[in-house]
């Protein structure tokens, strides 16, 4: 995908939310689009539409959110909010991410008993499942682009991506082992390549 190099993008100041309300609204909007997972929508809204984060920032925050305990999109919301408005921003972003969807899902839980046996409803859920797999796959492919300027070098970085997929999706290793084993290797290798 052709993207302008960072040097060209640099002169105009990076866009940022102008108010807590806007921060709340963007997170509400992206959460409400996230059927079967918020990650693809978060990437589209925060990186491509609002441009509050670069692709690189997004992966970086996500990696940190990933190794910290807690749901990674929650951690991502906190970090983005905190970056722009400190503690207040962190909680406003989190409230946007969770508030409206929470009301909807609890209403759906109350309604569900009536709808469960309709074959159209269960069919629609299956169709939406296939699409959400596609959405997440596309997000992963876009994020590959963020590895272009990694100190690891592209071949090593892509190799780590491949081994991760193999261990998690193929061999079904527990995440903790993958992070411990492959994470240590990958971080050590990056450490060696970054000049002190």
């Amino acid at each position: 995908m052709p993207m302008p190099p960072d040097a060209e993008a640099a002169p105009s100041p990076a866009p940022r939310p102008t108010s807590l309300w806007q921060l709340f609204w963007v997170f509400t909007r992206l959460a409400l689009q996230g059927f079967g997972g918020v990650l693809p929508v978060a990437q589209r809204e925060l990186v491509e539409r609002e441009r509050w984060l670069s692709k690189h920032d997004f992966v970086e925050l996500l990696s940190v959110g990933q190794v910290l305990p807690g749901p990674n999109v929650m951690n991502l919301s906190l970090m983005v909010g905190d970056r722009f408005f400190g503690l207040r921003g962190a909680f406003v972003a989190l409230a946007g991410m969770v508030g409206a969807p929470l009301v909807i899902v609890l209403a759906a839980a109350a309604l569900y008993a009536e709808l469960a046996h309709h074959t159209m409803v269960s069919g629609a859920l299956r169709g939406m499942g296939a699409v959400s797999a596609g959405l997440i796959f596309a997000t992963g492919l876009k994020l590959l682009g963020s590895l272009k300027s990694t100190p690891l070098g592209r071949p090593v970085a892509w190799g780590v991506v491949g081994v991760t997929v193999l261990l998690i999706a193929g061999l079904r290793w527990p995440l903790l082992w993958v992070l411990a084993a492959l994470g240590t290797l990958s971080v050590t290798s990056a450490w060696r390549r970054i000049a002190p």
Partner: protein
Amino acid sequence: MSDGLTNADLLSLFGHFLMLSLLAIGGAISTAPDVHRYVVTERGWLTDAEFTTSIALAQAAPGPNLLFVAVVGWNVAGPMGAAVTMFGIMLPSTTLALWATRWRNQRREARGVRAFSAGMAPITVGLVLATAWLLAEPTREQPVGWALMLLTVVVMLKTRLSPIWMIAVGAVVGAMGWI
């Protein structure tokens, strides 16, 4: 569904989700097996079917996957149950995440922090791709499922269309019984 939970039961539910919050590395959904063990097997607050339905509903509704926790809490003990499980799962991890982010931001340029970010980035991308593979499991045998998935990938990479339109297409294709 058992509504007769005592305060001690609610407290223990809260405690269990406080603990899960710190174990939820790699997303809330990775704690689902343990939630099942506690709520269904150990406590008998929900049946297997009620538990499975809770997860399916949360996946189908908009919003983060984490909300399955709220649905489980709701089905165990109504609004109070949902409040208890959500606060439990969010409190420790949000506190820790904020603290860790700030600590890290002050040391952005340190070699260790840079090596950590650079080393973990490809693993994160790999995890996103692996999640897609696992989510595709139920439809992987079906040509229509594959077609829907590929179409979604192409639309997302080549256009600026909001993902919600593809979700709508998936819902229609599924409701028509084509998948």
